[in-house]
């Protein structure tokens, strides 16, 4: 439809509001309370425009752009003097109490309030009286609170409470004293609290980890990156200054993370700056100090030629690095560096997604589902952003009902929430332990994973899946299965979620069965499976042998040299197995970035680049390959793992890697070697890509201090580093327009310094980026293949006398290896030596809670503290998975227990 803005005709999409329409057309209209993901409430009165009745109407009336829907032939004016004066007046009021703080405010330079103040032309204060002040609160290790700066837009509580389901941030007091905070100082409990720093249009909530090494947005070297925290692969922008990583900011991707990140992703970056980084190659245990890189490469190549070598890959290393190692040691000698249970689950997930007829959704699609069934996943802890998507999905059905009844647009946030009240769409959760999403669920079922999987199979059977009948269910369970089946059948876009969280493969099979049965009924279900790590699926696609066979190979003397790629093997199998593994290995060559227990055993250390110092590709749980880019040139001899492999290969004269030098070369080899990954060629522009003959600069045009940063070392500035791998430059010189979506280092637009500038990069508000969102999907459903149902349901869970069945319990803070180097995350991690047991079990074993118990697995014992947890079924125990120093690693496992 056509709308006339200042008498010029424009095309606008129906269903939008005027503010969205103006922003989509590239016009600048200031706003505060509206947020593309949160909708409109019309609270700040900043987006006022004049709307005219018809062509002859010269007076018009002021309306709030965010509250007025687009209509055909609507005439409005942004430039009308009345509207402009109104907007200037409004911002004058908003600024009356705003402190004289910009110089000491962390938001300065990426502040929406600064931008909008300049945009409205409010330059001088008219208010000459005293300012209101507030006391601040300590909100924990992630966020800084400075309430004086608040302009009462209510975005923080709308995000925190309404969108993310947080309970402990609210608005207090009344009239011009309203206060946004907690009822008392304390850590913000929501896993998405870090987003407040970006949601807040000014500096009330700012990133506390950034403050500890504060740098303005314009002074950082940015690169597009991908979060390494879990398997969802949210897009981030990583910023560096003075050789250390300073901040992780959200990088909008319309298909994946949208506008938000979880706290593990936002704050889990500090391992990059850790003092435990390996920065120089070294021979161990003999050499102290640095050795020459060429010498090390020669030595490693010689050891490779002489020895029989195997390579151990890693799910936290890029596709390129794993592929380079696989080629270096030969396909038959490449082992996946995942624990055997993780490997089983990941390969099952790949099989389900590749051979099954059901599509796996992007995070965005998951948020649009209208019925959700979660099997054995505590999403907030295993895939946090998927939990946030589910929180939106449960609103879809009541929202659609409400909008149908009262004819409201979706963006009318306050009105829609008023109409929806506490109504929720169908959400069913099967999980052993309580989850944060339980509060939204229509029904929750507890029990042992096998038991829950049986019930999942029963749901599939109710939906007509061709599987063996499930017997022995209670009438309530049968009724629940029927209810779930009916709700899923009634939904238009049902979403089934399974994954690795319970450690039980039957749970994933049950999820697949349910989804496939729905598909067989002609529905359009979505099936999302969570996976353990950032590149678990990518590594599984590359393929390799199991880790336990690597141990056998060494034990039998078929190999004596091991190359370990970005992997702490002590996190992959129990301690005694890895100790034995290293005992049999004569040479252990470790390419990694952190000095961990595996590095302790290595004979050669090669410093690898982290995600911030390397280019690479990772594949998320959706099968979406995404590229992350090097942010800065690291200290020492740190370089990409794949580059180490290529350089070793050159010395060792490995033919399959001959002549490969940079990222494009290795990607060419990867895509020709693995036809299933061929579409990676179109993932991102190649290194020779230029716009107007120019590279894309990683640094903003206001980047400062170039002639002083290194002047203390040498007053003659060094030549800037060159990037042979990507079309990005390490300097501020280059093309200043909008880069292609995969190459956007940071969001900025003239007059829009804050992250809100993302609207200038989108096809439509909240939609795709110009030219399509970055990332290439490698997995599509096998449409004509029928449904290869898993026929056998697991047996009923029966406790084994004298034994406990130990299952993993995952936590957002603690279960992931690298984020634990962030002090704020480590501080809130769970206790590593807890063994959760049913109180009745404790009584039966005669164990006092808090005492140590001995657990014996595979003829090796370890001691854990017994902790009562009445959600644990009898005969089942849980340990916090993935924590450093955790004595039981490969979970689930059957163990003997002694008091």
């Amino acid at each position, binding site marked *: 439809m056509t709308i006339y803005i200042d008498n010029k005709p424009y095309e606008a999409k129906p269903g939008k509001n005027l503010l969205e329409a103006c922003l989509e057309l590239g016009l600048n209209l200031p706003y505060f309370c509206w947020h593309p993901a949160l909708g409109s409430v019309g609270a700040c009165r900043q987006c006022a425009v004049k709307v005219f009745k018809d062509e002859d109407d010269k007076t018009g009336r002021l309306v709030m752009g965010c509250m007025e829907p687009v209509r055909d032939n609507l005439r409005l004016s942004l430039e009308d003097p009345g509207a402009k004066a109104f907007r200037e007046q409004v911002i004058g009021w908003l600024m009356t109490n705003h*402190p004289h703080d910009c110089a000491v405010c962390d938001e300065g330079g990426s502040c929406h309030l600064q931008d909008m103040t300049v945009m409205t032309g409010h330059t001088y204060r008219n208010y000459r009286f005293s300012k209101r002040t507030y006391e601040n609160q300590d909100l924990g290790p992630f966020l800084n609170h400075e309430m004086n700066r608040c302009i009462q837009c209510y975005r923080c509580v709308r995000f925190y409470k309404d969108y993310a389901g947080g309970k402990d941030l609210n608005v207090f007091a009344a009239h011009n004293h309203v206060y946004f905070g907690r009822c008392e100082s304390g850590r913000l409990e929501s896993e998405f609290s870090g987003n407040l720093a970006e949601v807040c249009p000014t500096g009330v909530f700012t990133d506390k980890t950034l403050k500890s090494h504060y740098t303005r947005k314009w002074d950082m070297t940015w690169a597009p990156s991908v979060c390494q925290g879990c398997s969802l692969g949210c897009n981030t922008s990583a910023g560096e200054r003075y050789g250390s990583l300073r901040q992780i900011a959200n990088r909008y991707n319309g298909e994946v993370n949208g506008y938000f990140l979880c706290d593990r992703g936002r704050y889990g970056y500090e391992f990059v700056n850790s003092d435990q980084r390996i920065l120089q190659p070294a021979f161990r245990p003999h050499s102290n100090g640095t050795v020459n890189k060429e010498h090390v490469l020669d030595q490693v190549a010689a050891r490779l030629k002489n020895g029989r070598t195997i390579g151990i890959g890693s799910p936290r290393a890029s596709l390129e690095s794993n592929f380079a190692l696989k080629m270096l040691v030969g396909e038959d000698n490449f082992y996946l560096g995942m624990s055997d249970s993780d490997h089983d689950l990941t390969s099952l997930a790949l099989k389900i997604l590749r051979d099954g007829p059901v599509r796996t959704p992007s995070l965005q699609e998951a948020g649009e589902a209208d019925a959700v069934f979660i099997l054995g996943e505590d999403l907030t802890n295993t895939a946090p952003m998927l939990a946030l998507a589910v929180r939106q999905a449960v609103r879809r059905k009541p929202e659609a009902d409400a909008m149908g009844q009262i004819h409201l647009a979706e963006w009318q946030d306050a009105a829609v929430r008023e109409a929806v009240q506490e109504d929720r769409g169908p959400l069913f959760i099967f999980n052993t332990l309580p989850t944060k999403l339980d509060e939204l669920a229509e029904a929750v079922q507890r029990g042992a994973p096998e038991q829950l999987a049986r019930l999942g199979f029963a749901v599939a059977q109710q939906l007509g899946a061709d599987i063996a009948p499930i017997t022995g269910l209670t009438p309530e369970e049968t009724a629940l299965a029927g209810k779930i089946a009916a709700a899923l059948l009634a939904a238009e876009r049902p979403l089934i979620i399974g994954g690795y969280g319970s450690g039980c493969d039957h749970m994933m099979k049950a999820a697949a069965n349910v989804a496939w049965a729905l598909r067989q009924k002609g529905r359009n279900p979505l099936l999302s499976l969570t996976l353990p790590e950032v590149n678990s699926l990518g590594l599984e696609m590359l393929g390799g042998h199991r880790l336990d066979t690597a141990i056998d190979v060494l034990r039998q003397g078929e190999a004596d040299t091991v190359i370990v790629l970005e992997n702490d093997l002590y996190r992959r199998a129990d301690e005694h197995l890895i100790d034995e593994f290293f005992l049999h290995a004569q040479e252990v060559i470790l390419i990694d970035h952190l000095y961990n227990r595996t590095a302790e055993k290595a004979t050669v250390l090669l410093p690898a680049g982290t995600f911030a110092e390397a280019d690479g590709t990772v594949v998320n749980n959706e099968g979406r390959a995404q590229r992350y880019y090097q942010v800065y040139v690291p200290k020492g001899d740190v370089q990409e793992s794949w580059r180490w492999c290529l350089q070793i290969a050159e010395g060792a004269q490995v033919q399959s890697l001959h002549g490969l030098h940079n990222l494009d070369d290795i990607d060419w080899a990867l895509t020709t070697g693995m036809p299933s990954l061929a579409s990676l060629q179109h993932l991102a522009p190649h290194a020779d890509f230029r716009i107007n003959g120019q590279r894309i600069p990683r640094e903003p045009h206001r980047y400062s201090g170039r002639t002083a940063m290194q002047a203390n070392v040498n007053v003659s500035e060094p030549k800037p580093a060159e990037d042979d791998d990507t079309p990005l430059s390490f300097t501020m010189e280059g093309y200043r327009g909008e880069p292609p979506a995969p190459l956007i280092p940071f969001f900025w637009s003239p007059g829009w310094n804050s992250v809100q500038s993302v609207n200038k990069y989108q096809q439509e508000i909240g939609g795709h980026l110009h030219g399509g969102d970055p990332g290439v999907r490698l997995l599509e459903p096998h449409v004509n293949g029928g449904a290869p149902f898993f026929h056998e349901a697991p047996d009923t869970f029966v406790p084994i006398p004298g034994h406990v069945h130990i299952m993993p319990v995952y936590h957002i803070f603690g279960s992931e290896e690298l984020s634990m180097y962030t002090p704020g995350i480590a501080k809130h991690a769970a206790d590593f030596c807890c063994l959760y047991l049913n109180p009745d079990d404790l009584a039966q074993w005669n164990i006092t809670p808090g005492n140590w118990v001995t657990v014996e697995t595979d003829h090796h014992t370890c001691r854990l503290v017994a902790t009562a947890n009445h959600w644990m079924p009898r005969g089942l125990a849980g340990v916090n998975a993935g924590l450093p120093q955790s004595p039981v690693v490969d979970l689930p496992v059957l163990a003997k227990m002694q008091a």
Partner: protein
Amino acid sequence: MFSLLRSMWLVFLHMFHKRETYQYPEEKAPLPARWRGRIALTRDPDGGERCVGCYLCAAACPVDCISLQAAEAPDGRRYPGFFRINFSRCIFCGFCEEACPTYAIQLLPDFEMAEYDRQNLVYEKEDLLINSQGKYPGYNYYRVAGMAIAGKDKGEARHEEPPVNVRSLLP
């Protein structure tokens, strides 16, 4: 011919004029107070560092010769952890002084900074920080800013009301 003689006469007359040339270095030129010379970091009336590490000087610098790192002291004051000016690049344009919101960075009437070794023109914070308020005596940024620091709590700055009691609903 006449003009030649006239010029010689005028030159001759100049012998009796007041001399404009200063016999530098024996005699120093009187520089105006707003002369844009050596850059210094000044102090508050209470002796604290004025610089709060806001990076505006660095951003304003056309030759990018200022680099610093902001830090926060336990008392809540912000300060530059390091502050470096590469005077071999500086063009003494004074943009940094104009950009400074706290009157911390000031250009002083002093130009005698020549060095034989260019490396010596790199000034660190200890070379820049002076024990003076410079050209703007009396100004104390924290007295007008909303941030609380030791000795100045919320509501104690100029033009500030005492902090709101958020548990009260009284008007």
